[in-house]
């Protein structure tokens, strides 16, 4: 397809959002007074002017065919004068001013297979990444695990009966594009064998010095293999982060049997009550079990249910565990505590229990 390079423009940036805002928002921009969750998935915002805006939130698998986007457009045209938005967690929201259109809109979404919910003390959409659909780094698939999980956690999306919001995130490798490092529950793809080095390609594809420098533990050193300049990996020093692979395609870590998932818990982002916190390791390794990852799904469900049963009102997962203590968390969930749970990276010592404040039963 030929492009007319003379007409070519650059650096225009995104269109101004103003063009896309519904009139009720333009009018009340910055002048909202309060909100209420009218029912699961339906949010009402009331402006100082008295105007009301209803947002109907529906789940999406994030990976979207243009056909379903078009279908969302149909719905928005029918109920929202063509106005919709997406959320920071990949849900879609239909912006309604006419109260009578809420129920038909909800009904229509459900009929098309897009459940409505994810508000208040519920499990909303899982933030996730590319996995086997698109990324070269993935230690597991992303969309498939998320789908398997949400099929099972579905009631928590449609209802609001958890102690607090529960955010789940997923990333298919340690690069953590799903930003799983601060989630109530996180799933993270892990490699578990050292990079396989394509000695014949490394010189062509990689800069050896920057490959060596890329390793956080200094596990890589230069080596001559079959007379060719290459690198070698000191097995005991490798913790499978794949940073070398990012820098050098000739060092692959993907492995059908060794790759899998780890599970993390107790992170959060908001400043509400407790300051933001990182997720902590719960289960170091679960094998990849496509297509439906039953072990991982069961493990997450167990954590959710244990939390739902034991936490107090407004307590996020991490706040709950902090109150009851980690030994009790492992006890209640039946998860095994292993040597992998004890940190041994740079700031490891900062995570040791340096007091006699302990529970003893």
């Amino acid at each position, binding site marked *: 397809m030929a*492009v007319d390079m003379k007409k*070519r*423009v*650059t*650096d*225009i*940036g*995104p*269109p101004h*959002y103003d*063009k*896309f805002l519904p009139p009720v*928002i333009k009018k009340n921009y910055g002048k*909202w007074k*309060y*909100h*209420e969750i009218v029912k699961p998935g339906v949010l009402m*915002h009331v402006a100082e002017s008295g105007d009301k805006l209803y947002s109907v939130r529906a789940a999406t*698998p*994030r*990976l*979207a*065919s*243009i*056909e379903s*986007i078009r279908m969302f*457009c149909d719905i928005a045209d029918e109920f929202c004068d*063509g*106005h919709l*938005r*997406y959320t*920071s967690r*990949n849900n*879609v929201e239909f912006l309604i001013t006419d109260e009578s259109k809420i129920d038909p809109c909800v009904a229509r979404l459900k009929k098309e297979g897009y459940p409505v919910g994810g508000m208040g003390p519920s499990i909303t959409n899982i*933030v996730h990444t590319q996995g086997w659909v*698109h*990324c*070269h*780094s993935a230690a597991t*698939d992303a969309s498939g695990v998320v*789908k398997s999980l*949400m*099929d099972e956690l579905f009631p928590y999306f449609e209802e609001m009966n958890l102690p607090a919001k529960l955010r789940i995130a997923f990333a298919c490798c340690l690069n*953590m594009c799903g*930003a799983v*490092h*601060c989630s109530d529950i996180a799933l993270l793809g892990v490699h578990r064998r050292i990079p396989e080095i394509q000695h014949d390609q490394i010189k062509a594809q990689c800069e050896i010095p920057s490959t060596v420098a*890329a390793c956080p533990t200094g596990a890589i050193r230069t080596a001559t293999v079959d007379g060719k300049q290459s690198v070698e990996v000191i097995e005991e020093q490798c913790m499978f*982060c794949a940073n070398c692979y990012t820098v050098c395609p000739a060092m692959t870590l*993907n492995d*059908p049997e060794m*790759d899998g998932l780890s599970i993390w818990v107790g992170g959060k*982002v*908001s*400043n*509400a*009550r407790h300051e*933001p916190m990182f997720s902590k390791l719960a289960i170091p390794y679960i094998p990849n079990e496509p297509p*439906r990852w039953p072990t991982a799904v069961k493990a997450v469900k167990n954590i959710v249910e244990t939390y739902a049963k034991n936490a107090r009102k407004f307590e996020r997962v991490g706040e709950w565990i902090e109150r009851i203590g980690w030994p009790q968390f492992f006890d209640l969930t039946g998860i095994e505590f292993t040597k992998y749970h004890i940190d041994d*990276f740079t700031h490891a010592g900062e995570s040791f229990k340096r007091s006699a404040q302990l529970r003893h039963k």
Partner: protein
Amino acid sequence: MVEKLRDTPKIDELMKGPWPSFVKEIKLSAKLSGRAGERANDLLGVLERSYNDKIGHWKHGGIVGVMGYGGGVIGRYNDLPEEFPKVAHFHTVRVNQPSGWFYKTDVLRKICDLWEKHGSGVTNMHGSTGDIILLGCATEDLEPVFADLTEMGFDLGGSGSDVRTPSACCGMARCEWACYDTMGACHDITQTFQDELHRPAFPYKYKFKFAGCPNDCVASVARSDMSIIGTWRDDIQMDAAAVSEYAQSGKFDMQADVVGRCPTGCMSWDGQKLAIDNRNCVKCMHCINAMPKALAPGRDRGATVLLGSKAPIVGGALLSSVMVPFLKMEPPYEDLKELAEAIWDLWGEHGKNRERVGEFIQRIGMSNFLEQIGLDPIPEMVIQPRTNPYIFFETEEEE
């Protein structure tokens, strides 16, 4: 239109169940006519193959992009091009979303048309950084995609070592708690730094995220090098009658669930009246979240600017840390822009390759960093002062 969809028994398992299925979405696109359908169909095939092999089939991207831009496209090649020729190239295009992810259907339909014409009909709404992700086209499609995009008023987002596509919570558009205009600021910053966004010239990526209040609905404190989080300086606004209503509503126990969960214990409740020692309130939002009709952030509003969060590669994950406790956020946001530029100057010159700004600060030392960018050290920047006595005293002046 492809004659027959690829046979995919494994991933068909993921068509079942109540949650919307991404496999269904790919199949919807695979049924499209033209290249889009063919590509989506081959994507189905690759994926089925991965589900059998338990391994991905994508290779490193190499550098592909549009003319004059260093970012915005993620190159991707398949490692089984014979078997899946239509996805031998399968690059993604990152399109800078409008602030707050608001759309009108006319423009969304145009994007769909574009991606039917040039791509695969498969998208991500949205990527983790916030972009519209157009998933999968060939190298030769890139310029035409770009031409059509710009024509409809869109532009590419970031990738590589540049400013990444900034994002913002819906803020003032739809939230009573927004302490500044997140979408306005996000758009302004995005426009101002178009060059930095499109032409990677930094040691590594630099992300902006704009959250209107400490609830941080865009996870800025965890996922952006520069996190701008709305807050206020004066007293929480309180409607006492509405507080009483909540107290009687039975929705929660005022003492245990609200007062008892205030992180500084600065609230008290005598069964009738709620009192807040605002001097010790750390603007956590909890009490306001619990009673949106009764409480609200104060009127003297602005934002806290924090710096440095990132995922674990290489030195471990970081959350952003406080740089400016309170900044009035008003257009044209000069203070914020100057701060960003001062940081880029320093980090640009002294940062190592692939060293995020958060790691850079740790390497050169916060005090040193502050001195260089011209900020005064203040106690708000730390949880606590140092505990080790290893102080690099500078005594030349005294001597």
